[in-house]
Every structure is written in structure tokens, then in C-alpha cells.
């Protein structure tokens, strides 16, 4: 399992548009990918869960990747987070 911690820098937080992009990005991988803020852990492949975190600028989120392509997913999503959130 790989784990990625990321502090949101986008002033609007994970709002609808980036949540959609994130879901689209993680769906390319077969690994189970979860996104967690505080105690709440959500399926990163479902847009309602991702938006439901209500992650704002300055919040730390933790993504976990588990499965055959977890390394590739980790690399791609790290890059995605830095560029978009």
C-alpha cells in the first residue's frame, strides 16, 4: 500500500470541478484508492464522497493506494494533486 499526504493549496478547496477531475484521474487505475480527511475516509472513485469531504485550502488529505498498479497510481495522482489542488 502507498500513502500520499497532501495539503490543499487551491483557494477554493476540492470543489465540484477538481473533484470531478480527480475522480476521472483515479478511475484510470484498478487499485483501490481512498481519500481521507481527519476521520472521514471516502472512495476516491466516487465524486460525492470526494466532494463530501469538504476539503478546503490548508486541509491535509491522505490518499491511500492499494492494488496491482498502486505505484503508478501514486505517481500519477501526486502529480495531479500538485497541478490541480
Amino acid at each position, binding site marked *: 500500500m502507498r500513502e500520499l499526504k497532501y495539503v490543499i*493549496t*487551491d*483557494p*477554493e*478547496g476540492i*470543489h*465540484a*470541478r477538481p*473533484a*470531478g477531475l480527480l*475522480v*476521472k484521474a483515479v478511475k484510470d487505475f484498478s487499485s483501490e484508492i481512498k481519500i481521507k480527511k481527519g476521520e472521514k475516509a471516502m*472512495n476516491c*472513485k*466516487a*465524486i*460525492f*464522497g470526494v*466532494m*463530501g469531504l*469538504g476539503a*478546503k485550502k490548508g486541509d491535509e488529505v491522505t490518499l491511500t493506494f492499494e492494488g496491482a498498479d498502486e505505484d503508478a497510481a501514486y505517481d500519477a495522482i501526486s502529480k495531479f494533486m*500538485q497541478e490541480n489542488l
Partner: protein
Amino acid sequence: MEIYKGKSVFGGIAIGKIRVYRKGKQQVKRQRVTDTDAEMARYRAAKEEAVRQLQGLYEKALKEVGEANAAIFEVHQMMLDDDDYNASVEHIVCSQEVNAEYAVAATGDNFAQMFASMDDDYMKERAADVHDISERLLTILNGADSAAADAGEPAIIAADDLAPSETVQLDKDQVLSFVTVHGSLNSHTAILARTMAIPALIGTPLPLDETVDGRLGIVDGSAGVIYVDPDEATLAAMREKQQAEKQKKELLQTLKGKENITLDGQKVMLYANIGNIKDLATVLQNDAGGIGLFRSEFIYLESDHYPTEEEQFRIYKQVAETMGNKRVIIRTLDIGADKKCDYFGMEPEENPALGYRAIRICLTRPEVFKTQLRALFRASAFGKIAIMYPMITGIQEVRQIKQIAEEVRKELTEQGIAIGDPEQGIMIETPAAVMVSDMLAKEVDFFSIGTNDLTQYTLAIDRQNTKLDAFYDAHHPAILRMISMVVENAHKAGIWAGICGELGADQTLTREFLAMGVDELSVSPGSILPIRKIVLETDVGAYKAGK
């Protein structure tokens, strides 16, 4: 006549029949089903149809209101594909042996509830999106026609609130204005109204019944008012106001897409001044040739800490990409004791206008300056960024800046980070800079004259002090001579010179500036087309001869 006051989303006057828009709210009955597999198949077919409809709406919105506003329909498609949403529908259908309609309505309510209970206004509003997709599924499952009503004649649409899909489905030619009882400035309806540039009000306590429906109404967008059954005097006054606005708008529309060239062939660049990334839409709408002054200080003023390189980079990159191959001149940090950020820890000053500000802060706190320059150099790989330094008084400062910029460029290159080759220019806003502009011109790529400060420093008049208004002359010959001198010195050194202060938008001076050979005028977005009109009608040679 009844008058209702709301919050203005977009200005302008609309006069016409009011049509109350009623949602095709689907009635849902809970019914037992025996074949849950068949029911799920029915649900999946409805979902596919809904996704197909949303794709159509996305493409329609893309054409009408642009990619950023159309994106919501892409998000709606993803919501329909949401695993949790679909699992919930399936669970309700299979475990309770009920119809898909009931399962969709219940699921929609649950998910909407989740958003409505979040402590974030933006997220609260997403409950409307959930209702919107659920309603779409229900409409398809019920085999009813889409909720889009047909209008008959162009009307003022009054509604409780409008879902984004409802707004886009309305035939634009049939909509004079939107007036909603609910909704917020962030709602999609508000955003769309602004993009469509039609008058719109939200938060208007309008009764949606027969006292309004079908009556004559007037929406005064800028005043935030709707008149129902207006009296003759109001109607006449508003017709006149509408006519004046229409003529102005039509005239300006005919100027869109035209080159800024005088009758005798002299060209000038007309750029826009902006103070926030939110102004980008108006820059494009007004056909600006570029951005002549992007005031980067909003990034600092809106923050509670020194903005990081990443935070700044993202904003500069967005502007550069949005403007494509058009020039974007970003002015580096211009704050001081009058425009201050607490985290800078600035001490109060007797005389802030002559104090520790702008480039003076940057040169004494190179770490703050370098962070901004790194972000700017990186963003310049994504568009045509130019960097402009404010409050220059002499050549020493410029050399110091160039040295720091060179260090930044070297560091980024060594780190293998992509950068562009941004032009670097300076503001001419001190009398000292004017007097040595011949020397400065050899050091930089362009000049932009900041007439507000230049006037204040030259005439020794504090603009904040209203007692001095009688002594203030914006057209003082001293200022005009200075501008002329700066332009001349720029041209001698083969660089271009523009004006980005308020004087640049002064239409009584446009001909004079053209005669001086000013290469660029950077003005507020709304002033671009009126100035283009003057440029197109001017014969510079004849103007000079007639002086």
C-alpha cells in the same frame, strides 16, 4: 405598480412579460416490484439516457457560455456515474423490492442532505446539483418530456431557483432576464447570467403567483429592482434608459474584432488593467489585445501569509493560458503602508506615498521578491507573460532587479524547471524615472507610464486630500510633456511605451497620445471599445497639423 428589490447579478434593463417558471417536479409513488432485475435494467437505461442528455447540454453550454461554465454538466455526468449513488439506488430497489423512481428520489434526498448539512456555502449549494440529476432521472423514468418549458414570446423568467440544466435548456432568445427568489451570487444561474450578459436578480422576494405571472415587468439589473405592472412614467423612463444602453452596446459590438488602427494607418495596442483573476471574463468580452497591468498585489492582500511560489504560479499560469498568445503584463508586488498586509509587519509611516513600498520592499526583502519572480518565470512557459517593476527611480535599481531576475532564471534552469523568456519592463511613475528615461530605456524591454502616481509626485498633490482638488489638473502640461518625453526616449532606444494609469482611459486625450506616438494604452476593460472607436476615427496627421 409593485416594486421588489433583489440582489443584482448583472446590469441592464429588461422589459417584458413575466413568466413564472414552475419546475416539472416529478411525483413519486412508492410501488412494490417483483422483478428487481428488470427494475434495475430500467434504471440503468434511464441513467444512460440521462448521461446522453447531459452530454448534449454540455456541448450546448460549451458553445453558449464557455468551457468553465459548461463543466458543471460534466460533473453531473460523473455524479450519475458515482458508485455510491448507484449502489444506494440498487440497494433500495433490491432490498425493499420497490420501483426505481422511489429509489432515485430517496437516494437523491439523502445525498442532497449530506451537502446541505456541510458548513460551507459552496458545498451547501451542491445539494441543488444532486436534486437536478435525480429530477432528470425521474423525468426519464416517468417517460415525461423534459422540464424545459416553451416560452412563446421573450419573457422575464421568474423562478424560485433555477438548476443549471434548466438555465441552459431555456432558449436564450426567449429569455430577457432571470429573477429568482433564492439562489446566490455563486449559483450557476448567476454565473450563466453574467456570461450571457443579461440582467438578472437573485434573492428577490417575489410572489410566484398570478399577481406576477403574465404581468408586464421591468428588471433594472444595475439597481437590483423589478417593477411589476409599472406605471406609465416608470415605463417611459426605463424604455429610454434601455434604448440608450442598447445603442451604446450595439455600437460597441460593431467594433469588436477590429484592429486598433487610425485612418492614416497608425496602430496602437489596447490592453486591459485588471486587479483580480475574476476580471478575466470581462477582459475577453471587451476584446482586449492583452493585459497591460495585472495588479499582483491582490494575491498578497487576500492572503494571510506570504503567498507561496505554487499559489502564485497557479494564478499566473491560469492568466497566461487564458490569454493564449496575447501579452500579459504582470506588475510585481506593489504594496506599501497604504495597501498593507499584516504579515509583512510594516511600520506606520508619516508619508506612505514616499515611503517603504513596492520595489523598495522587494529589493530589501529579496526572498519575497524571488518567490514571486520564480512563479512568474515558471508561468511564462505557458503564455506570453511580461514582468513589470513598479516605483523605479533610477538605473541602479533596475540593474539590481535584473541581477536578481538573472539569478532566478539560472536557478530554475539548473533545477531543470521549464521557463519562458518573459519581457521585462518598468513603470515610469516618478519624475526621476522620466528624467533618466533615456538611460532606463537601454536596460529594459518596455515602459508603462503610471500616470496616477506620476501626477501626484509631479504636482506635489496628495490625491486623498479633497481640499486640493482645485489645484489638481489631470491635464497639466507638465504631465503631458513628461509622457511625450518618455515615449520619445523609448523609441530612440527601440522599445515600446504605454500608459496604464487612469489618464490612459481619458478619451479627451486619446488623439493627443496617438500624436505623441504612445504604443499602448492599458485601461479598464469597459473603456477598450470606446477608445477603439476614437482610434478608428482619428487621422493623426491631420490632428497634428491642426494643432
